[in-house]
């Protein structure tokens, strides 16, 4: 269902160092673009310290919208889009076996329907968590999650101390939440 074989063809459209992104803790930002049958999408891959790669995607038309991660496209292509993220991560992991995979399941905001989803265990988080656990096993990764903030981190077991990486990631999350 989330197979990378079914992923959309993608291309890299942006490459920024941490300095130019102006995002806290981000060492590098790479932006990829792909087109579904209906819409173009962008995937932002943020590289954090400890080789943590965080994936974010949204419709290109919402690029300048502050709530771009919270909006629903209602296109019904979630599985292939997530498969595209997996495909990108696999290429990163091939080059860098210390790479860890992270995501935040953003809460849905639908102002027209006056609906705001709570931030804990969002539906995106539940779906992405299921996808990661179906495809990334426990031999290659140690899995961590924070259900209160809907953040998931799969740390590569090739790292010497996976718990140290999880602790450092927690520290970064706290700083980012406080902002």
């Amino acid at each position: 269902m989330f197979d990378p074989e079914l992923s959309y063809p993608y291309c890299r459209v942006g490459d920024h160092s941490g300095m130019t992104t102006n995002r806290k803790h981000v060492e590098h930002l790479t932006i990829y673009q792909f087109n579904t049958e209906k819409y173009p999408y962008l995937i932002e891959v943020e590289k954090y310290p400890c080789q943590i790669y965080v994936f974010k995607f949204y419709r290109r038309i919402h690029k300048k919208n502050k709530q771009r991660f919270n909006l629903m496209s209602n296109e019904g292509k979630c599985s292939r889009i997530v498969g595209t993220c997996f495909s990108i991560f696999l290429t990163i992991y091939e080059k860098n076996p210390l790479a860890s995979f992270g995501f935040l399941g953003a809460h849905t905001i639908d102002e027209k329907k006056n609906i705001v989803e709570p931030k804990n265990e969002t539906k995106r988080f539940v779906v992405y968590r299921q996808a990661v656990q179906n495809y990334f096993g426990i031999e290659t990764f140690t899995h961590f999650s924070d259900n209160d903030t809907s953040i998931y981190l799969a740390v590569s077991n090739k790292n010497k101390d996976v718990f140290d990486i999880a602790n450092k990631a927690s520290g970064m999350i706290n700083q980012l939440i406080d902002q």
Partner: protein
Amino acid sequence: MQKMGKLITPFNQKRDVSMNVAAVRLATKSKGSLAKITADEIKNRRVAAYRYLLP
């Protein structure tokens, strides 16, 4: 398929999701701390039909 259908159900009736944005921000201002998910938990939750991309 039924299981996946449940997962992507837009809004669970048990949760009060019709709160305004400010109320949600106040309610979820918690500290992030990542907890390890045990291998058993992953095995129990994993859908057996899927193959591992990375074991």
